[in-house]
């Protein structure tokens, strides 16, 4: 039984299908079947970028996940997820879950568009009332979107029966000749998401283009507004605890805001910058425990605990995380910090000097502060490395905010060395935090009479983390050398040639 799918414009209807097929066959229709399907993707369109579409299709009590790549036959497995959003870990083990786990990672799968379907089965009979072809007409419309009804393309599935294949070809010809063609070859899921108002593949919040000739305050405000919008958009995901990436993105936006304010806040004509700086710092501090525990839990996923059962440790850490998240949620839901900040920025857009020279000057200053902090060398105490890391982050956020105005090659050269330095510093500092969290967890578990083997195995895991940090310290010397070297300095000087 070969099955082919024909898709026509939403202007097509069941009457046209019936009329077209009746030219050659006796058309017998069955009872309509009602169903629905939901398009799923991550908030940052990871499936779309991987060339995949995922649908949760439901009819009666049956729920299926349909994963398609547009090239081969879709993979279909039973779905046990009752409500979306959900993470890949909530899916039952299956080839679909295996294929999704790579591109999706820890992100939540969100419902991007919900489509209601009325399927009408048809049998195309010959003069002896023998079924020659089976046809299913899917009348689809988008639901859950405010406003008018949104009809979607008319979908017709033609199933040829063995020994009667030419009849299926004839049915397809009749339909193609009679029904209005679809103007796009995009997959049904993409059409549904577009109709629902999404732009698959494009971020929900567009990064502003920075013009080197524009007044610097306008550019600065654009960068800060963008970060405020990004941060604001993550809050519902953090509160609902959809996935750890929402919090990570929130922290990244706060950090970017604080970095830009620290380096360039003096350019803003508002006296409230300092007050907001303090509030952002307080929020950042509040997010840290949850993020630290997320990083630790994620890292423990592949760790070997020997014969010990790691579940008591995981339960303990998750419980700590839940408490920290509760505290963060109470703060986040009780404030409109990003809204206030946005409104403050609305009054800050004033004419002034051009962006280009200022952005280059700020980058050079940021570089100088990192170099100054880097003098402590690779064996410096943790506090000094922490200071170095913070300065490196500030420089990175400034560079990324004003990336458009820098000379591209010089920008890439600076960014590459800066990122390498940040990565190494991250292994050292994150390792320290993870070690500390594990030490506290081991002490708590030991007090509560946990399995000795587990407590000992936590020590082994800590040793592994420390070994990674020690290796990173060795690497740090090289990174610092490259970062403060001649070529890096040349790249920094060349930033202004853009």
């Amino acid at each position, binding site marked *: 039984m070969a099955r082919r799918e024909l898709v026509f414009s939403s202007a097509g209807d069941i009457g046209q299908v019936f009329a077209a097929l009746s030219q050659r066959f006796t058309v017998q229709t069955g009872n309509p079947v009602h169903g629905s399907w939901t398009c799923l993707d991550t908030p940052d369109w990871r499936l779309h970028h991987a060339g995949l579409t995922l649908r949760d299709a439901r009819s009666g009590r049956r729920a299926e996940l349909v994963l398609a790549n547009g090239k081969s036959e879709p993979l279909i497995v039973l779905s046990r997820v009752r409500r979306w959003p959900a993470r890949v870990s909530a899916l039952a083990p299956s080839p679909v879950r295996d294929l999704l786990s790579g591109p999706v990672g820890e992100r939540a799968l969100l419902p991007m568009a919900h489509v209601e379907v009325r399927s009408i089965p048809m049998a195309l009979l010959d003069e002896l*009332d*023998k*079924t020659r072809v089976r046809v299913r007409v899917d009348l689809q419309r988008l639901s859950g979107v405010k406003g008018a009804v949104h009809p979607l393309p008319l979908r017709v599935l033609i199933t040829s029966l*063995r*020994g*009667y294949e030419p009849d299926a070809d004839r049915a397809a010809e009749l339909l193609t000749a009679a029904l209005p063609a679809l103007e796009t070859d995009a997959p049904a899921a993409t059409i549904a998401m577009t109709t629902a108002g999404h732009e698959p593949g494009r971020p929900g919040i567009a990064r502003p283009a920075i013009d080197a000739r524009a007044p610097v305050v306008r550019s600065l405000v654009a960068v800060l507004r963008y970060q405020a919008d990004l941060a604001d958009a993550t809050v519902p995901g953090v509160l609902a605890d959809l996935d750890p990436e929402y919090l990570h993105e929130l922290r990244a936006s706060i950090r970017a805001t604080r970095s830009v304010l620290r380096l360039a806040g003096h350019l803003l004509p508002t006296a409230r910058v300092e007050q907001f700086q303090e509030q952002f710092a307080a929020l950042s501090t509040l997010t840290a425990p949850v993020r630290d525990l997320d990083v630790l839990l994620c890292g423990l996923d592949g760790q070997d605990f020997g014969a010990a059962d790691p579940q008591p440790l995981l339960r303990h850490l998750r419980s700590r995380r839940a408490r920290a998240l509760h505290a963060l949620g109470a703060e986040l839901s009780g404030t409109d910090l990003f809204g206030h900040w946005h409104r403050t920025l609305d009054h800050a857009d004033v004419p002034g000097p051009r962006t280009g020279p200022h952005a280059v000057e700020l980058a050079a200053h940021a570089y100088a502060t990192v170099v100054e902090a880097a003098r402590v060398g690779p064996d410096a105490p943790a506090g000094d490395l922490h200071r170095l890391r913070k300065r490196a982050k500030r420089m990175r956020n400034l560079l990324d905010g004003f990336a458009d105005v820098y000379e591209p090659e010089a920008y890439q050269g600076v960014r590459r060395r800066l990122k390498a330095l940040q990565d190494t510093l991250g292994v050292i500092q994150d390792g320290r935090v993870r070690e500390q969290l594990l030490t506290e967890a081991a002490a708590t578990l030991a007090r509560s009479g946990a399995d000795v083997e587990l407590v000992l195995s936590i020590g082994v895991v800590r040793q592994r983390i420390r070994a990674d940090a020690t290796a990173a310290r060795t690497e740090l010397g090289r990174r610092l050398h490259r970062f403060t070297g001649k070529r890096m300095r040349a790249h920094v000087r060349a930033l202004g040639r853009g």
Partner: protein
Amino acid sequence: MRVVALYNIKGGVGKTSTAVNLAYHSAAQGRRTLLWDLDAQGAATFILRVQPRVRGGGKALVRAKRPVEDAIKASDHEHLDLLPSDWTYRHLDLLLDETKKPTRRLARVLEPLAGEYDDVFLDCPPSMSLLSENVLRAADVVLVPLIPTTLSLRTMDQLRDFVADQPGRRPSVIGFFSMIDRRKREHRTVVEALPVERTDVLDVGIPNLALVEQMAARREPVLAFAPRSTAAVSYRELWTKALG
């Protein structure tokens, strides 16, 4: 792939109606099923609304001049395909006789379908001939519909001797009652006594009901148009005891 033959030396004992209903039941359970209508009269083909014609005729099929796959037609029922009857089947014995290894042709014809079907039902014409030898070679199970009369025992014995005389692999031969008329004393007596006396006759039977005859008029299996009828229950019971 399991090959089940509906076979009896006598005609009019319910082979076709049983073959059609068991094949339908097999398909309804999601098993990929093929029904081969070997009878030139084409009753099974008619019930399943397919034209009684095989491209190239029976000759091309048994001589492997045309692939068997090309002759198969889908029925109106999911998972159930038909290898239709053809008028040339009336000379099937002669056609088989003209081939090399004439007693193995049917089995050879079915070989390419091994991965494609879970169950193949052979609806055989009444005879004891070269075709019968082919059927016994090809089949894993031979189901023998027996009208519950004293002569049934004789039919069963004849068939058992015939199978015993065959060289090589032998199918299991299972008798069951067909066209039972409970108003007749002989039917009642035989239905009660025979399964007790013999292990090769099942304690299950298909009643002689007008509903079964209506299959030809409705051109559907009883299990499709009257799934809760006594006849349908009997066919399902036969499936369970003989093939389940």
